[in-house]
Protein backbone atom coordinates (compact mmCIF):
# COMPACT_ATOMS: atom_id res chain seq x y z
CA UNK A 1 0.00 0.00 0.00
CA UNK A 2 1.32 3.41 -0.94
CA UNK A 3 2.58 5.63 1.86
CA UNK A 4 1.44 9.22 2.01
CA UNK A 5 3.46 12.41 2.38
CA UNK A 6 2.79 16.09 1.96
CA UNK A 7 4.85 19.17 1.22
CA UNK A 8 4.32 22.93 1.08
CA UNK A 9 4.84 24.71 -2.24
CA UNK A 10 4.33 28.23 -3.58
CA UNK A 11 2.01 27.21 -6.39
CA UNK A 12 0.64 23.66 -6.71
CA UNK A 13 -0.73 24.49 -10.16
CA UNK A 14 2.78 25.24 -11.35
CA UNK A 15 4.45 22.26 -9.64
CA UNK A 16 6.67 20.46 -12.15
CA UNK A 17 7.56 16.78 -12.56
CA UNK A 18 11.18 15.77 -12.18
CA UNK A 19 13.86 15.12 -9.60
CA UNK A 20 13.90 17.59 -6.71
CA UNK A 21 15.14 18.19 -3.17
CA UNK A 22 12.09 18.50 -0.98
CA UNK A 23 10.95 18.58 2.65
CA UNK A 24 8.20 16.02 3.15
CA UNK A 25 6.04 15.22 6.14
CA UNK A 26 5.14 11.65 7.03
CA UNK A 27 1.37 11.17 6.98
CA UNK A 28 1.15 7.38 7.34
CA UNK A 29 4.01 6.23 9.58
CA UNK A 30 3.90 2.81 11.21
CA UNK A 31 3.80 4.49 14.61
CA UNK A 32 1.00 7.05 14.49
CA UNK A 33 2.81 9.23 17.03
CA UNK A 34 5.41 9.97 14.32
CA UNK A 35 2.85 11.53 11.99
CA UNK A 36 3.85 14.96 10.59
CA UNK A 37 7.59 14.55 11.26
CA UNK A 38 9.68 16.14 8.51
CA UNK A 39 12.40 14.62 6.32
CA UNK A 40 14.59 16.27 3.68
CA UNK A 41 14.85 13.99 0.66
CA UNK A 42 15.93 13.80 -2.95
CA UNK A 43 12.92 12.46 -4.83
CA UNK A 44 11.24 11.98 -8.17
CA UNK A 45 7.82 13.58 -8.42
CA UNK A 46 5.12 13.20 -11.06
CA UNK A 47 1.46 14.13 -11.40
CA UNK A 48 0.23 10.50 -11.74
CA UNK A 49 1.15 6.95 -10.83
CA UNK A 50 1.31 6.04 -14.51
CA UNK A 51 4.27 8.37 -14.85
CA UNK A 52 5.90 7.06 -11.68
CA UNK A 53 4.92 3.41 -11.17
CA UNK A 54 5.21 2.02 -7.64
CA UNK A 55 5.42 5.48 -6.18
CA UNK A 56 3.89 6.89 -3.03
CA UNK A 57 1.31 9.64 -2.66
CA UNK A 58 2.37 13.26 -2.27
CA UNK A 59 -0.18 15.85 -1.21
CA UNK A 60 0.66 19.44 -2.06
CA UNK A 61 -0.19 22.34 0.22
CA UNK A 62 -0.03 26.04 -0.45
CA UNK A 63 2.39 27.88 1.82
CA UNK A 64 -0.40 28.90 4.13
CA UNK A 65 -1.70 25.41 4.63
CA UNK A 66 -4.60 24.74 2.25
CA UNK A 67 -4.36 21.35 0.61
CA UNK A 68 -4.40 21.03 -3.19
CA UNK A 69 -7.23 18.65 -4.13
CA UNK A 70 -5.29 16.47 -6.60
CA UNK A 71 -2.44 14.42 -5.12
CA UNK A 72 0.90 13.92 -6.88
CA UNK A 73 3.20 10.90 -6.68
CA UNK A 74 6.65 10.69 -5.12
CA UNK A 75 9.52 8.23 -5.10
CA UNK A 76 12.20 8.94 -2.50
CA UNK A 77 15.69 8.41 -3.87
CA UNK A 78 17.76 9.29 -0.81
CA UNK A 79 17.75 11.10 2.50
CA UNK A 80 19.39 14.54 2.59
CA UNK A 81 19.71 15.01 6.33
CA UNK A 82 17.76 16.64 9.11
CA UNK A 83 18.32 20.32 8.32
CA UNK A 84 18.86 22.93 5.66
CA UNK A 85 22.07 25.00 5.59
CA UNK A 86 21.38 28.48 6.96
CA UNK A 87 21.30 31.11 4.24
CA UNK A 88 23.06 34.40 4.84
CA UNK A 89 20.00 36.58 4.47
CA UNK A 90 18.24 38.85 6.92
CA UNK A 91 14.68 37.70 7.39
CA UNK A 92 11.80 39.55 8.95
CA UNK A 93 9.95 36.36 9.79
Amino acid at each position, binding site marked *: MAREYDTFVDNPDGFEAGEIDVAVRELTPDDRRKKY*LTRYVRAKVAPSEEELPGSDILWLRWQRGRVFPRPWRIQVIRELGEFMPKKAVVRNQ
Partner: protein
Amino acid sequence: MALLDNRQFTKALKQTGDLVEVNREVDWDCEIGAIVRRACEMEGPATLFNSIRDYPGHRIFGGPVSTLRRAAVAMGIQPTASTKEIFDQFYQRMQNPIPPVLVAEAPCQENVVVGDAVDLTMFPAPMVHDGDGGRYLCTWHFVVTKDPETGWVNWGMYRVMVHNERHMGGIILATSDAGKMKLKYERMGKPMPFAIAIGPEPVCAISAAVPLPANIDEVDVAGGLAQEPVRLVRCKTVDLEVPANSEIVLEGEILHDVEVEEGPFGEYTGYRSGPRAPRAVYRVNCITWRNNPITVISNMGMPVDEGQICYGTLGVGSGVRQALEAAGIPITGVFVPPYGAGNLIIVGTRKPYNHIATQISQIVFGSRAGMPANFLIVVDDTTDVYNIGKVLHALATKCHWRDGVMTFPAWGNPLAPFLSLRERATGRGGRIVLDCTWPVEWDPEAEKPVKSSFADIYPKELQEKVLRDWHVYGFE
Protein backbone atom coordinates in the same frame (compact mmCIF):
# COMPACT_ATOMS: atom_id res chain seq x y z
CA MET B 1 -2.79 34.19 47.35
CA ALA B 2 -1.13 30.87 46.59
CA LEU B 3 0.79 30.60 43.35
CA LEU B 4 -1.32 28.19 41.30
CA ASP B 5 0.25 25.49 39.18
CA ASN B 6 -1.85 23.97 36.42
CA ARG B 7 -3.26 21.26 38.65
CA GLN B 8 -4.45 23.78 41.23
CA PHE B 9 -5.52 26.15 38.47
CA THR B 10 -7.78 23.57 36.80
CA LYS B 11 -9.39 22.84 40.18
CA ALA B 12 -9.95 26.56 40.77
CA LEU B 13 -11.48 26.93 37.30
CA LYS B 14 -13.78 23.98 37.96
CA GLN B 15 -15.02 25.71 41.09
CA THR B 16 -15.74 28.98 39.28
CA GLY B 17 -17.49 27.15 36.42
CA ASP B 18 -14.75 27.95 33.92
CA LEU B 19 -13.61 24.40 33.06
CA VAL B 20 -15.08 21.42 31.25
CA GLU B 21 -13.50 17.97 31.73
CA VAL B 22 -13.68 15.63 28.73
CA ASN B 23 -13.32 11.98 29.70
CA ARG B 24 -14.05 10.28 26.35
CA GLU B 25 -11.00 9.59 24.19
CA VAL B 26 -10.12 12.44 21.82
CA ASP B 27 -7.54 12.71 19.05
CA TRP B 28 -4.45 14.93 19.29
CA ASP B 29 -4.66 15.19 15.49
CA CYS B 30 -6.94 18.25 15.08
CA GLU B 31 -9.90 17.06 17.21
CA ILE B 32 -8.62 18.65 20.42
CA GLY B 33 -7.66 21.76 18.47
CA ALA B 34 -11.14 22.03 16.98
CA ILE B 35 -12.82 21.68 20.38
CA VAL B 36 -10.60 24.29 22.03
CA ARG B 37 -10.97 26.64 19.07
CA ARG B 38 -14.76 26.49 19.19
CA ALA B 39 -14.75 27.06 22.94
CA CYS B 40 -12.50 30.10 22.42
CA GLU B 41 -14.77 31.60 19.78
CA MET B 42 -17.77 31.09 22.11
CA GLU B 43 -15.78 32.72 24.93
CA GLY B 44 -16.54 29.45 26.69
CA PRO B 45 -14.69 27.48 29.35
CA ALA B 46 -11.23 25.94 29.34
CA THR B 47 -11.02 22.20 28.64
CA LEU B 48 -9.19 19.40 30.40
CA PHE B 49 -8.91 16.33 28.18
CA ASN B 50 -8.34 13.22 30.31
CA SER B 51 -7.94 10.58 27.59
CA ILE B 52 -5.76 11.18 24.52
CA ARG B 53 -5.55 8.79 21.57
CA ASP B 54 -2.12 7.13 21.32
CA TYR B 55 -1.07 8.62 24.66
CA PRO B 56 -2.40 6.70 27.68
CA GLY B 57 -1.63 8.43 30.97
CA HIS B 58 -1.34 11.87 29.38
CA ARG B 59 -3.74 14.79 29.62
CA ILE B 60 -4.13 18.03 27.68
CA PHE B 61 -5.35 21.33 29.15
CA GLY B 62 -6.66 23.62 26.43
CA GLY B 63 -7.39 27.35 26.45
CA PRO B 64 -6.07 28.02 29.96
CA VAL B 65 -6.39 31.83 29.93
CA SER B 66 -8.46 32.64 26.87
CA THR B 67 -10.84 34.86 28.85
CA LEU B 68 -10.15 37.73 31.23
CA ARG B 69 -12.18 35.81 33.85
CA ARG B 70 -9.61 33.02 33.79
CA ALA B 71 -6.73 35.51 33.89
CA ALA B 72 -8.39 36.89 37.01
CA VAL B 73 -8.62 33.41 38.57
CA ALA B 74 -4.94 32.79 37.78
CA MET B 75 -4.04 35.97 39.68
CA GLY B 76 -6.46 35.37 42.56
CA ILE B 77 -8.75 38.23 41.50
CA GLN B 78 -12.54 37.88 41.64
CA PRO B 79 -13.58 36.54 38.21
CA THR B 80 -16.62 38.81 38.27
CA ALA B 81 -14.42 41.92 38.35
CA SER B 82 -14.85 44.34 35.43
CA THR B 83 -12.34 44.58 32.57
CA LYS B 84 -11.05 47.83 34.02
CA GLU B 85 -10.68 46.36 37.51
CA ILE B 86 -8.78 43.29 36.24
CA PHE B 87 -6.52 45.40 34.03
CA ASP B 88 -5.84 47.91 36.83
CA GLN B 89 -4.96 45.07 39.24
CA PHE B 90 -2.70 43.49 36.66
CA TYR B 91 -1.02 46.82 35.96
CA GLN B 92 -0.47 47.59 39.63
CA ARG B 93 0.95 44.13 40.39
CA MET B 94 3.33 44.01 37.43
CA GLN B 95 4.89 47.22 38.67
CA ASN B 96 5.61 45.60 42.03
CA PRO B 97 7.80 42.65 40.99
CA ILE B 98 8.91 39.96 43.43
CA PRO B 99 12.18 38.07 42.80
CA PRO B 100 12.07 34.26 42.63
CA VAL B 101 13.46 31.69 45.04
CA LEU B 102 15.60 28.72 44.04
CA VAL B 103 14.62 25.22 45.16
CA ALA B 104 16.71 22.07 45.06
CA GLU B 105 14.03 19.59 44.06
CA ALA B 106 11.13 20.10 41.72
CA PRO B 107 8.08 18.24 40.45
CA CYS B 108 9.10 19.09 36.88
CA GLN B 109 12.15 16.85 37.29
CA GLU B 110 10.32 13.75 38.49
CA ASN B 111 11.20 12.12 35.16
CA VAL B 112 14.31 12.73 33.03
CA VAL B 113 15.60 11.55 29.64
CA VAL B 114 18.80 12.77 28.01
CA GLY B 115 20.67 12.42 24.72
CA ASP B 116 19.61 9.74 22.30
CA ALA B 117 16.71 8.74 24.55
CA VAL B 118 15.02 12.07 23.80
CA ASP B 119 11.89 11.59 21.71
CA LEU B 120 9.56 14.56 21.39
CA THR B 121 6.78 12.33 20.11
CA MET B 122 6.41 10.82 23.58
CA PHE B 123 4.19 13.83 24.40
CA PRO B 124 0.80 14.45 22.77
CA ALA B 125 1.76 17.61 20.90
CA PRO B 126 -1.48 18.53 19.16
CA MET B 127 -2.01 19.33 15.52
CA VAL B 128 -3.69 22.55 16.58
CA HIS B 129 -5.25 23.60 13.26
CA ASP B 130 -5.75 21.54 10.12
CA GLY B 131 -3.05 22.61 7.66
CA ASP B 132 -0.56 23.84 10.26
CA GLY B 133 3.09 23.15 9.48
CA GLY B 134 3.37 20.51 12.17
CA ARG B 135 2.55 19.53 15.72
CA TYR B 136 3.02 22.45 18.10
CA LEU B 137 4.23 21.23 21.46
CA CYS B 138 4.93 24.79 22.56
CA THR B 139 1.96 27.16 22.49
CA TRP B 140 1.51 27.88 26.22
CA HIS B 141 5.07 27.94 27.44
CA PHE B 142 8.10 30.16 27.36
CA VAL B 143 11.61 29.93 25.97
CA VAL B 144 14.37 30.77 28.46
CA THR B 145 17.60 32.22 27.03
CA LYS B 146 20.53 34.12 28.47
CA ASP B 147 22.30 37.09 26.90
CA PRO B 148 25.91 35.95 26.27
CA GLU B 149 27.26 39.42 27.02
CA THR B 150 25.22 40.68 29.96
CA GLY B 151 23.93 37.44 31.51
CA TRP B 152 20.37 38.80 31.52
CA VAL B 153 17.75 36.02 31.22
CA ASN B 154 14.69 36.41 29.03
CA TRP B 155 11.42 34.51 29.04
CA GLY B 156 9.57 34.76 25.74
CA MET B 157 6.56 32.97 24.32
CA TYR B 158 7.71 32.04 20.81
CA ARG B 159 5.84 29.26 19.01
CA VAL B 160 7.81 26.03 18.51
CA MET B 161 6.90 23.06 16.28
CA VAL B 162 8.08 19.45 16.40
CA HIS B 163 10.36 18.79 13.40
CA ASN B 164 11.53 15.27 14.27
CA GLU B 165 12.22 13.23 17.40
CA ARG B 166 15.12 15.42 18.58
CA HIS B 167 14.51 18.75 16.87
CA MET B 168 12.00 21.54 16.68
CA GLY B 169 11.59 24.58 14.48
CA GLY B 170 10.52 27.95 15.73
CA ILE B 171 9.91 31.55 14.80
CA ILE B 172 12.18 33.99 16.65
CA LEU B 173 11.64 37.49 15.32
CA ALA B 174 14.74 39.66 14.97
CA THR B 175 12.94 42.36 16.97
CA SER B 176 12.38 40.05 19.97
CA ASP B 177 14.69 39.81 22.97
CA ALA B 178 15.59 36.20 22.12
CA GLY B 179 16.16 37.24 18.49
CA LYS B 180 18.71 39.83 19.56
CA MET B 181 20.45 37.28 21.81
CA LYS B 182 20.44 34.69 19.02
CA LEU B 183 22.21 37.13 16.73
CA LYS B 184 24.97 37.59 19.34
CA TYR B 185 25.50 33.83 19.59
CA GLU B 186 25.53 33.54 15.79
CA ARG B 187 28.22 36.20 15.57
CA MET B 188 30.22 34.20 18.13
CA GLY B 189 29.69 31.07 16.03
CA LYS B 190 27.98 29.29 18.92
CA PRO B 191 24.62 27.65 19.48
CA MET B 192 22.34 29.38 22.02
CA PRO B 193 21.42 27.30 25.08
CA PHE B 194 17.72 27.25 25.86
CA ALA B 195 15.15 25.77 28.18
CA ILE B 196 11.44 25.66 27.45
CA ALA B 197 8.89 25.43 30.25
CA ILE B 198 5.66 23.94 28.94
CA GLY B 199 2.61 24.41 31.14
CA PRO B 200 4.26 26.53 33.83
CA GLU B 201 2.24 28.29 36.52
CA PRO B 202 -0.28 30.41 34.58
CA VAL B 203 1.12 33.72 35.88
CA CYS B 204 4.53 32.73 34.48
CA ALA B 205 3.09 32.10 31.04
CA ILE B 206 1.12 35.35 31.21
CA SER B 207 4.28 37.24 32.17
CA ALA B 208 6.18 35.65 29.27
CA ALA B 209 3.42 36.68 26.84
CA VAL B 210 3.70 40.32 27.93
CA PRO B 211 6.07 42.35 25.70
CA LEU B 212 8.13 43.72 28.58
CA PRO B 213 11.09 46.00 27.86
CA ALA B 214 14.50 44.29 27.69
CA ASN B 215 16.28 43.76 31.01
CA ILE B 216 13.00 43.50 32.95
CA ASP B 217 12.85 40.01 34.46
CA GLU B 218 9.65 38.20 33.53
CA VAL B 219 10.08 35.91 36.53
CA ASP B 220 9.95 38.91 38.88
CA VAL B 221 6.85 40.22 37.14
CA ALA B 222 5.25 36.76 37.47
CA GLY B 223 5.99 36.93 41.20
CA GLY B 224 4.36 40.33 41.31
CA LEU B 225 1.26 39.02 39.56
CA ALA B 226 1.00 36.13 42.04
CA GLN B 227 2.10 38.33 44.95
CA GLU B 228 4.60 35.67 46.02
CA PRO B 229 7.91 34.47 44.59
CA VAL B 230 8.07 31.94 41.78
CA ARG B 231 9.99 28.80 42.73
CA LEU B 232 12.72 28.04 40.21
CA VAL B 233 14.92 24.98 39.79
CA ARG B 234 18.20 24.65 37.91
CA CYS B 235 18.00 22.77 34.64
CA LYS B 236 19.78 19.44 34.29
CA THR B 237 21.97 20.16 31.27
CA VAL B 238 22.02 23.94 30.67
CA ASP B 239 22.90 26.91 32.88
CA LEU B 240 19.32 28.14 33.10
CA GLU B 241 16.42 27.91 35.53
CA VAL B 242 12.74 27.09 35.06
CA PRO B 243 9.63 27.16 37.26
CA ALA B 244 9.67 24.11 39.50
CA ASN B 245 6.03 23.25 38.84
CA SER B 246 6.20 23.28 35.05
CA GLU B 247 4.58 20.24 33.47
CA ILE B 248 7.31 19.55 30.90
CA VAL B 249 10.77 21.10 30.43
CA LEU B 250 12.87 20.87 27.27
CA GLU B 251 16.58 21.66 27.45
CA GLY B 252 19.00 22.06 24.58
CA GLU B 253 20.54 24.50 22.15
CA ILE B 254 19.35 26.63 19.26
CA LEU B 255 21.70 25.83 16.41
CA HIS B 256 23.43 28.71 14.68
CA ASP B 257 24.34 27.25 11.30
CA VAL B 258 21.28 25.34 10.08
CA GLU B 259 17.55 25.93 9.63
CA VAL B 260 14.38 23.89 9.24
CA GLU B 261 11.09 24.70 7.62
CA GLU B 262 8.56 25.87 10.19
CA GLY B 263 4.93 26.97 9.99
CA PRO B 264 2.48 27.98 8.81
CA PHE B 265 0.46 28.36 12.01
CA GLY B 266 -2.88 29.98 12.84
CA GLU B 267 -1.88 33.01 14.87
CA TYR B 268 -3.27 35.52 17.36
CA THR B 269 -4.22 37.87 14.53
CA GLY B 270 -6.96 35.40 13.64
CA TYR B 271 -5.27 34.19 10.45
CA ARG B 272 -2.65 31.82 9.22
CA SER B 273 -0.92 34.56 7.27
CA GLY B 274 2.78 33.76 7.31
CA PRO B 275 4.10 31.11 4.91
CA ARG B 276 6.19 28.07 5.76
CA ALA B 277 9.76 29.35 5.91
CA PRO B 278 13.28 28.43 7.09
CA ARG B 279 13.52 29.17 10.80
CA ALA B 280 15.48 28.47 13.97
CA VAL B 281 16.39 24.89 14.92
CA TYR B 282 16.00 23.80 18.55
CA ARG B 283 18.02 20.65 19.33
CA VAL B 284 16.59 19.01 22.44
CA ASN B 285 19.18 17.27 24.60
CA CYS B 286 17.11 16.63 27.71
CA ILE B 287 13.45 16.40 28.67
CA THR B 288 12.15 16.47 32.23
CA TRP B 289 8.51 16.19 33.24
CA ARG B 290 6.06 15.71 36.06
CA ASN B 291 4.35 12.40 36.68
CA ASN B 292 1.13 12.13 34.66
CA PRO B 293 2.06 15.25 32.66
CA ILE B 294 -0.49 17.71 31.40
CA THR B 295 0.43 19.18 28.03
CA VAL B 296 -1.04 22.68 27.92
CA ILE B 297 -2.10 24.27 24.65
CA SER B 298 -3.27 27.62 23.51
CA ASN B 299 -5.22 27.61 20.27
CA MET B 300 -4.53 30.92 18.59
CA GLY B 301 -6.96 32.22 16.00
CA MET B 302 -10.08 34.33 15.78
CA PRO B 303 -10.77 36.04 19.11
CA VAL B 304 -10.88 35.32 21.93
CA ASP B 305 -7.82 33.35 23.05
CA GLU B 306 -4.63 33.76 25.04
CA GLY B 307 -3.02 35.74 22.23
CA GLN B 308 -5.57 38.52 22.45
CA ILE B 309 -6.00 38.40 26.25
CA CYS B 310 -2.46 37.89 27.56
CA TYR B 311 -0.42 39.44 24.78
CA GLY B 312 -2.92 42.05 23.64
CA THR B 313 -5.23 43.29 26.37
CA LEU B 314 -2.92 42.72 29.33
CA GLY B 315 0.51 42.81 27.68
CA VAL B 316 0.35 45.49 25.03
CA GLY B 317 -2.13 47.44 27.15
CA SER B 318 0.11 47.60 30.20
CA GLY B 319 3.28 48.29 28.21
CA VAL B 320 1.69 51.18 26.34
CA ARG B 321 0.17 52.60 29.52
CA GLN B 322 3.58 52.49 31.19
CA ALA B 323 5.23 54.29 28.26
CA LEU B 324 2.58 57.01 28.15
CA GLU B 325 2.65 57.58 31.90
CA ALA B 326 6.45 57.78 31.82
CA ALA B 327 6.18 60.47 29.15
CA GLY B 328 3.73 62.47 31.25
CA ILE B 329 0.80 62.21 28.85
CA PRO B 330 -2.46 63.03 30.66
CA ILE B 331 -4.11 59.72 29.81
CA THR B 332 -7.52 58.71 31.10
CA GLY B 333 -7.22 55.07 30.03
CA VAL B 334 -5.59 52.55 27.70
CA PHE B 335 -7.42 49.56 26.29
CA VAL B 336 -6.35 46.92 23.78
CA PRO B 337 -9.66 45.21 23.05
CA PRO B 338 -9.49 41.44 22.56
CA TYR B 339 -11.20 41.72 19.18
CA GLY B 340 -8.45 44.10 18.08
CA ALA B 341 -6.05 41.13 18.23
CA GLY B 342 -3.22 43.17 19.73
CA ASN B 343 -3.18 45.32 16.57
CA LEU B 344 -5.58 48.01 17.77
CA ILE B 345 -4.82 50.28 20.72
CA ILE B 346 -7.28 52.76 22.23
CA VAL B 347 -5.95 55.64 24.31
CA GLY B 348 -8.09 58.11 26.22
CA THR B 349 -6.56 61.49 27.08
CA ARG B 350 -7.34 64.94 28.29
CA LYS B 351 -6.38 67.32 25.50
CA PRO B 352 -4.39 70.31 26.65
CA TYR B 353 -3.07 71.06 23.16
CA ASN B 354 -3.66 70.10 19.53
CA HIS B 355 -1.86 67.15 17.94
CA ILE B 356 -1.50 65.31 21.22
CA ALA B 357 -2.64 62.28 19.20
CA THR B 358 0.54 62.61 17.13
CA GLN B 359 2.66 62.72 20.26
CA ILE B 360 0.80 59.72 21.68
CA SER B 361 1.33 57.76 18.48
CA GLN B 362 5.07 58.44 18.56
CA ILE B 363 5.27 57.11 22.12
CA VAL B 364 2.95 54.16 21.51
CA PHE B 365 4.57 52.93 18.30
CA GLY B 366 8.02 53.73 19.62
CA SER B 367 7.50 51.57 22.69
CA ARG B 368 8.47 47.92 22.99
CA ALA B 369 4.85 46.91 23.58
CA GLY B 370 3.22 49.08 20.94
CA MET B 371 5.69 48.57 18.10
CA PRO B 372 3.97 45.56 16.46
CA ALA B 373 0.49 47.16 16.56
CA ASN B 374 -0.91 48.92 13.52
CA PHE B 375 -3.91 50.99 14.60
CA LEU B 376 -4.23 53.67 17.28
CA ILE B 377 -7.48 55.35 18.23
CA VAL B 378 -7.19 58.41 20.44
CA VAL B 379 -10.33 59.58 22.24
CA ASP B 380 -10.86 62.37 24.74
CA ASP B 381 -11.82 62.08 28.39
CA THR B 382 -15.55 62.04 27.61
CA THR B 383 -15.25 58.57 26.07
CA ASP B 384 -14.86 55.42 28.17
CA VAL B 385 -12.03 53.49 26.46
CA TYR B 386 -13.38 50.16 27.77
CA ASN B 387 -16.77 50.73 26.10
CA ILE B 388 -16.23 49.69 22.48
CA GLY B 389 -19.65 51.04 21.46
CA LYS B 390 -18.73 54.49 22.76
CA VAL B 391 -15.31 54.32 21.11
CA LEU B 392 -16.91 53.37 17.81
CA HIS B 393 -19.29 56.30 18.16
CA ALA B 394 -16.39 58.67 18.81
CA LEU B 395 -14.61 57.33 15.75
CA ALA B 396 -17.66 57.74 13.56
CA THR B 397 -18.46 61.26 14.75
CA LYS B 398 -15.31 62.99 15.92
CA CYS B 399 -12.56 61.79 13.60
CA HIS B 400 -12.02 64.40 10.87
CA TRP B 401 -11.77 62.74 7.47
CA ARG B 402 -8.42 64.43 6.71
CA ASP B 403 -7.00 66.10 9.81
CA GLY B 404 -7.96 63.23 12.10
CA VAL B 405 -6.33 60.47 10.05
CA MET B 406 -2.58 59.98 9.95
CA THR B 407 -0.68 57.21 8.22
CA PHE B 408 3.03 56.68 7.97
CA PRO B 409 5.43 53.90 6.98
CA ALA B 410 6.90 51.72 9.73
CA TRP B 411 8.29 48.28 10.45
CA GLY B 412 5.97 45.61 9.05
CA ASN B 413 4.87 42.92 11.46
CA PRO B 414 5.28 39.64 9.52
CA LEU B 415 2.07 38.38 11.13
CA ALA B 416 -0.01 41.37 9.90
CA PRO B 417 -2.63 39.79 7.61
CA PHE B 418 -3.18 42.88 5.45
CA LEU B 419 0.45 43.04 4.28
CA SER B 420 1.47 41.28 1.09
CA LEU B 421 3.81 38.31 1.31
CA ARG B 422 6.66 40.52 0.11
CA GLU B 423 5.88 43.25 2.65
CA ARG B 424 5.81 40.68 5.45
CA ALA B 425 9.08 39.15 4.35
CA THR B 426 10.89 42.47 4.09
CA GLY B 427 9.35 44.16 7.11
CA ARG B 428 7.63 46.97 5.23
CA GLY B 429 4.42 48.14 6.87
CA GLY B 430 2.77 51.21 8.27
CA ARG B 431 0.69 52.70 11.04
CA ILE B 432 -2.69 54.40 11.18
CA VAL B 433 -3.68 56.96 13.82
CA LEU B 434 -7.30 58.01 14.22
CA ASP B 435 -7.68 61.19 16.27
CA CYS B 436 -11.19 61.27 17.72
CA THR B 437 -10.85 64.46 19.74
CA TRP B 438 -12.18 67.96 19.10
CA PRO B 439 -9.68 70.72 18.19
CA VAL B 440 -8.87 72.72 21.35
CA GLU B 441 -9.57 76.07 19.66
CA TRP B 442 -13.23 75.24 19.01
CA ASP B 443 -15.43 77.50 21.08
CA PRO B 444 -17.34 75.32 23.55
CA GLU B 445 -20.60 77.18 23.01
CA ALA B 446 -20.40 78.38 19.43
CA GLU B 447 -18.50 75.61 17.67
CA LYS B 448 -18.18 72.40 19.68
CA PRO B 449 -21.18 70.11 19.04
CA VAL B 450 -23.36 69.53 22.07
CA LYS B 451 -23.54 65.88 23.01
CA SER B 452 -27.13 64.80 22.74
CA SER B 453 -27.17 62.47 25.68
CA PHE B 454 -29.23 62.28 28.85
CA ALA B 455 -26.26 63.35 30.94
CA ASP B 456 -25.32 66.28 28.71
CA ILE B 457 -28.37 67.87 27.12
CA TYR B 458 -30.87 68.27 30.00
CA PRO B 459 -30.74 70.53 33.06
CA LYS B 460 -29.32 68.86 36.16
CA GLU B 461 -32.57 69.38 38.06
CA LEU B 462 -34.57 67.61 35.37
CA GLN B 463 -32.07 64.73 35.25
CA GLU B 464 -32.39 64.29 38.99
CA LYS B 465 -36.18 64.32 38.81
CA VAL B 466 -36.24 61.75 36.01
CA LEU B 467 -33.81 59.50 37.88
CA ARG B 468 -35.76 59.89 41.12
CA ASP B 469 -39.10 59.09 39.46
CA TRP B 470 -37.79 56.42 37.05
CA HIS B 471 -39.76 53.63 38.73
CA VAL B 472 -42.81 55.85 39.07
CA TYR B 473 -42.87 56.17 35.27
CA GLY B 474 -43.18 52.38 35.14
CA PHE B 475 -39.58 51.39 34.30
CA GLU B 476 -37.97 48.47 36.09
